[in-house]
């Protein structure tokens, strides 16, 4: 067991020594791997952030119940109370036509144009806040409210949330595909680096074969080299993502504040980071395994 361990420690040391011998070339390789890994991981974090943001909007499914024009205010209040009494409604707000007009006048700047109107064109509106969670039957509630007397129409404004969710699901899927493609790319980049390393050490491999080195013995340092490249690349990718997110944090918070949200950009979670680093190391190992299985057999003593 100790011998086995010392063989592995030796292989790891020799892999690190090879890496240290050519710092610039190694840094370039690690950087290429880091960028290829940072792209999908960074996208994943961003999609995760937008999803978190949109699930925060889940409660914002208030909808407007517009009453028939000409309905008097007492009737509107009665209707509002009736709707508020429903078990699937958490609360209501009545916006009378006068309030609506005043609000519109203040916000739109069309004050003079509105003055020209003979009467208020705006209906009374009851803003309904549903009680249920995301599973509740919003469509059913909207239909029931629309069937009430004196209700003109109900505007259920959840479609855009549905669309956003669909877009996010698609984006997550795209991130998965991009991750897979770039993962294969990283394995190939590492495999190619290992292939070059094997070629440059052909004479040494030949000698080791001549003194009875087994395939496993010859392969081991190259596998460690691939592992180290993958690990270093993934570590650099994690740092890169963290740095970029740190740069985005302030502007994102400022933007959120403009919308009255206290949303904070989430960084790479410890779980994401360990998946990234572990995945990177495994990709490195896979690339090295591919390269060694293909190229070590080609080198035979002559």
């Amino acid at each position, binding site marked *: 067991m100790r011998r086995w361990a010392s063989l592995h420690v030796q292989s790891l040391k020799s892999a690190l020594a090879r890496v240290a011998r050519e710092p610039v070339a190694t840094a370039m390789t690690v950087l290429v791997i880091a960028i290829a890994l940072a792209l999908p991981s960074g996208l994943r974090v961003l999609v995760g952030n937008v999803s978190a943001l949109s699930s925060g909007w889940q409660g914002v499914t208030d909808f407007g119940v517009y009453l028939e024009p000409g309905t008097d205010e007492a009737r509107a209040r009665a209707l509002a109370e009736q709707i508020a009494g429903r078990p699937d409604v958490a609360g209501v707000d009545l916006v009378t036509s006068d309030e609506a007009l005043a609000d519109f006048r203040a916000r739109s700047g069309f004050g003079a144009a509105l003055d020209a109107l003979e009467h208020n064109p705006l209906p009374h509106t009851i803003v309904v806040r549903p009680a249920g969670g995301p599973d509740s039957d919003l469509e059913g509630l909207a239909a029931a409210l629309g069937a009430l007397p004196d209700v003109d129409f109900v505007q259920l404004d959840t479609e855009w949330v549905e669309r956003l969710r669909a877009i996010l699901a698609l984006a997550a899927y795209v991130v998965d595909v991009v991750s897979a493609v770039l993962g294969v790319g990283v394995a190939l980049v590492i495999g190619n680096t290992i292939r070059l390393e094997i070629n440059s050490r052909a004479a040494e491999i030949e000698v*080791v074969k001549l003194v009875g080195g087994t395939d496993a*013995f010859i392969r081991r340092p190259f596998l460690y080299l691939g592992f180290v490249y993958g690990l270093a690349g993934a570590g650099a990718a994690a740092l890169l993502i963290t740095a970029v997110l740190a740069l985005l944090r302030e502007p994102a918070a400022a933007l959120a504040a403009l919308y009255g949200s206290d949303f904070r950009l989430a960084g790479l979670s410890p779980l994401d980071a360990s998946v990234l680093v572990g995945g990177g190391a495994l990709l490195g190992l896979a690339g090295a395994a591919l390269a060694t299985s293909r190229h070590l057999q080609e080198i035979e003593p002559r």
Partner: protein
Amino acid sequence: MIRFEGVYKRYPGGREALRGVSFHLARGEMAFLTGPSGAGKSTLLKLVTLIEKPTRGTVLVNGQNTARISRRGIPAFRQKIGIVFQDHKLLYDRSVFDNVALPLVILGLGPREIARRVRAALDQVGLLGRERHAPITLSTGEQQRVGIARAIASRPEVVVADEPTGNLDPELSLDIMRLFARFNEVGVTLLIATHDLELIERFGGRRLRLVDGMLDADGDAAAMTGS
């Protein structure tokens, strides 16, 4: 220890390097393999070290028929043979110690045992105290002795050498040959290819002379000079 029975070796392209070679080198024997260049000396050694397999005939080394050894079995086979090369084949990015230790590391020995055996091997070739040196800082003769130390470090019963004195002056060549003779005295079987006839004149023992892929003569040095 090494037995050839009617061995032919034809390379792709049709060149016949060996044509019906038969001989037997017993355990503990030492023989010089001679002959002009191109006579098949290197091919014969490649058959012993399983770099090549015979086209026809049988090569037995350590009682093993080399034709029956699969690719996976080659490392274990080579671990029992010491090989000395004309161009040393040292690893120049490693110390003398690490070069000699290589076959022992492959055998999976512990660090203490490796250190002990490396020093013993370097002592035998007269290079004790040079463990930490880089091979490139040594003379050609010393580098060859490092190569020999590596070949004997794992205490193989068979050592083959391909022109081990090819690049050395007569003085150093004699040193190397004396070294081999000493190994032979402790029971190592040796097969040494060389074209340096003057050198082997000074040693007794068996000579295998290859000419044009065939064994031209097999016998004592004394008997052959007499003929």
